[in-house]
């Protein structure tokens, strides 16, 4: 942190210390000495979670090349050590994975947009013109969101009064629905990289940036939507749109807003953390990047040159507050706090609770129906570069319900956790499966093609150049074991692919029955994945997880 007189501080130390004292209160979580003249409130990747949930952070989050050992690619004890977090503290529970089941009993659920509202109201009480910026992946991820095509989230978010938003999974509602919602939004939809696919020109409905006058400062917020939407998600659902990183256009927009008098430039991004880090080094003139997509929650911002990058987690679990001191068109300092939304500590905003319950009321019986239980030793979670226990359960469901040799499940990063001994409701199943392209297909693939798929997905995650990464995690597999050397180039990472039911190596020329879901191809047929998983859990009654040793990771 450098040449200028810029000073930075993070409020993290405060709640780490309080955490150690086991005396967390709402006032302490919200404590913040208002700083400078501009306040930003960042929330991102809510994935439809209106209500408090449990969410376990990853144990494996590998960084490749220059990212190796750098934030956010540190987990567990190393993460706690880096930030001075005491074992067993609320911060350990919020930010790391160890002892999750035990700590969850004590600290309870996290998130809930009614609690988030309380936090936002408190910040606005300090600084009435604080900007609330939504990083996207908001209108996706739950039963009610699926049934209402995002309307539940739109209704509740509108009540929180955001100032701007950018996008990713929203587009999987289909462009017609997205356009319809965006046209009626009471705030601006941003994305400098959202282009008209036919003409390769900026899309009319989405603005590249917007100016705000706040604290006497002219702030420009530039949007950056997820760059690889038509690749990572079904492009046929939104054929009119093209995306990409387009960092040359980002530079153009930064130069344009500076020329128009912007004293502070904020990028509301859905790039993913490593892509934002690289972009901050390529594009000059950005003060703050509010980073989304890769679901990282960092208690302190990461600095690249003079650019501050803030990562605010996912599933409604965190809100970031960033106060800036802008003088003479320069950022002289910042103060930051990642606020964990402990649902039992932060009081819900009753008007938002009612609004949320109104959205859920028509579906209440369906949502709450208990399908099965976890046993007393089994935690269901997803996050991590390789299989989580939720994914193992989904793959088992595909193998048994679809009578397949091998199952594949997408390496998405959304989906709350279920504690040991907890009821699994229909809502819980939708929380980890719901999407607009959830058909569970069954098909034949040769061993060679299965290898091509694993190599392709691995390169999207482990390519050393972040601009070639799509975010997300490795495709989850059932019935199949393999060895992966993450340091190798594409085509050489995956070896020793083994069909688990026979213990034999996969034969490149042999054909296997493969079941999976979330195909990006139009016309995919099969039952919806949530029905497949529900049938499976119903038959099991009680779900037991076991340690999955079928993927051997080397080079990490």
């Amino acid at each position, binding site marked *: 942190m450098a040449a200028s007189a810029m000073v930075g501080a993070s409020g993290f130390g405060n709640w780490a210390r309080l955490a150690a004292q086991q005396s967390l209160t709402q006032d302490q979580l919200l404590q913040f000495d208002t700083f400078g003249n501009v306040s930003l409130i960042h929330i991102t990747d809510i994935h439809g979670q209106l209500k408090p949930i449990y969410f376990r952070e990853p144990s494996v989050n590998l960084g490749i090349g220059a990212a190796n050992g750098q934030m956010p690619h540190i987990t567990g004890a190393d993460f706690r050590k880096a930030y001075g977090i005491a074992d067993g503290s609320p911060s350990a529970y919020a930010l790391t994975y160890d002892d999750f089941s035990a700590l969850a009993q004590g600290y309870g659920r996290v998130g809930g947009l009614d609690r988030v509202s309380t936090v936002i109201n408190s910040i606005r009480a300090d600084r009435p013109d604080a900007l609330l910026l939504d990083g996207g992946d908001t209108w996706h991820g739950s039963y009610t969101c699926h049934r209402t095509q995002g309307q539940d989230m739109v209704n509740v978010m509108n009540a929180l009064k955001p100032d701007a938003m950018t996008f*990713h999974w929203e587009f999987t509602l289909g462009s017609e629905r997205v356009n319809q919602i965006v046209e009626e939004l009471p705030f601006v939809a941003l994305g400098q990289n959202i282009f008209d*696919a036919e003409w*390769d020109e900026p899309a009319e409905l989405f603005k590249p940036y917007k100016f705000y006058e706040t604290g006497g400062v002219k702030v420009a917020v530039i949007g950056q939507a*997820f*760059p*690889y*939407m*038509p*690749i*990572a*998600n079904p*492009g046929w659902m939104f054929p009119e749109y*093209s*995306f*990409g*990183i387009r960092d*040359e256009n980002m530079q153009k927009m930064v130069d344009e807003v500076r020329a128009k008098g912007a004293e502070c430039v904020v990028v509301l991004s859905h790039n993913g953390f490593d892509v934002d880090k690289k972009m901050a080094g390529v594009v000059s003139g950005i003060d703050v990047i509010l980073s989304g*997509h890769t*679901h990282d929650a960092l208690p302190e911002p990461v600095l690249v040159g003079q650019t501050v990058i803030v990562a605010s987690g996912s599933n409604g679990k965190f809100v970031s507050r960033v106060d800036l001191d802008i003088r003479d068109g320069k950022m002289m300092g910042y103060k930051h706090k990642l606020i964990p939304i402990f649902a039992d500590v932060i009081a819900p905003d009753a008007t938002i609770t009612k609004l949320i319950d109104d959205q859920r009321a028509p579906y209440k019986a369906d949502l709450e129906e208990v399908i099965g239980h976890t046993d007393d030793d089994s935690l269901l979670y997803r996050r991590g570069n390789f299989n989580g226990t939720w994914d193992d359960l989904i793959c088992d469901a595909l193998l048994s319900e679809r009578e397949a040799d091998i199952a*594949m499940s*997408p*390496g*998405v*990063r*959304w989906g709350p956790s279920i504690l040991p001994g907890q009821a699994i409701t229909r809502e819980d199943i939708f929380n980890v499966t719901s999407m607009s392209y959830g058909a569970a*297909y069954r*098909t*034949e*693939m*040769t061993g*060679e*093609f299965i290898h*091509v*798929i694993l190599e*392709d*997905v691995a*390169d*999207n995650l482990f*390519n050393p*150049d972040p601009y*070639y990464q*799509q*975010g*997300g*995690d*490795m*495709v989850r597999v059932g019935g199949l074991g393999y060895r992966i050397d993450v340091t190798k*180039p*594409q*085509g050489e990472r995956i070896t020793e692919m083994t069909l688990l039911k026979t213990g034999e190596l996969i034969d490149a020329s042999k054909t296997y029955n*493969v079941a*999976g*879901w*979330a*195909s*990006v*191809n139009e*016309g*995919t*047929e099969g039952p919806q994945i949530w029905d497949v998983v529900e049938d499976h859990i119903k038959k099991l009654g009680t779900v037991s997880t076991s340690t999955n040793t079928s993927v051997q990771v080397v080079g990490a």
Partner: protein
Amino acid sequence: MEFSRRDTLALGLGAAVVTVLPFSVNAAADDVIATFTGGADMADSGIELTAPEIAENGNTVPVAVSAPGASAIILIATGNPTPGVAQFNFGPLAASQSASTRIRLAGTQDVVAIAQMADGSFAKAIATVKVTIGGCGG
């Protein structure tokens, strides 16, 4: 490897199977470059090539080239069976020496643009464009 149309459509993560072969290079690309430059050295600056890092559709990848002061620019897809894609010639009255088009890429590869400047010198820019089956963004 062979896949029926039905298999391909049903794949969980798949688009056109032929597009996911590892990084490809065609030796013929060097011939195209040699023919254009006559083996002359090429500068790293003076030409800008804009291409997506990952293609949204390998069958139609938008690329743009710009080289102020160039008399001609060639565009080469180094991994395609026929690497030569286009040559743009600019007359002395051309308002700008830039062009954009869409190209088809057989797989992940380097796209190369070479400009011949008015003084006869050459400049080169390279962009790696990845063609992927995708499908797992989180």
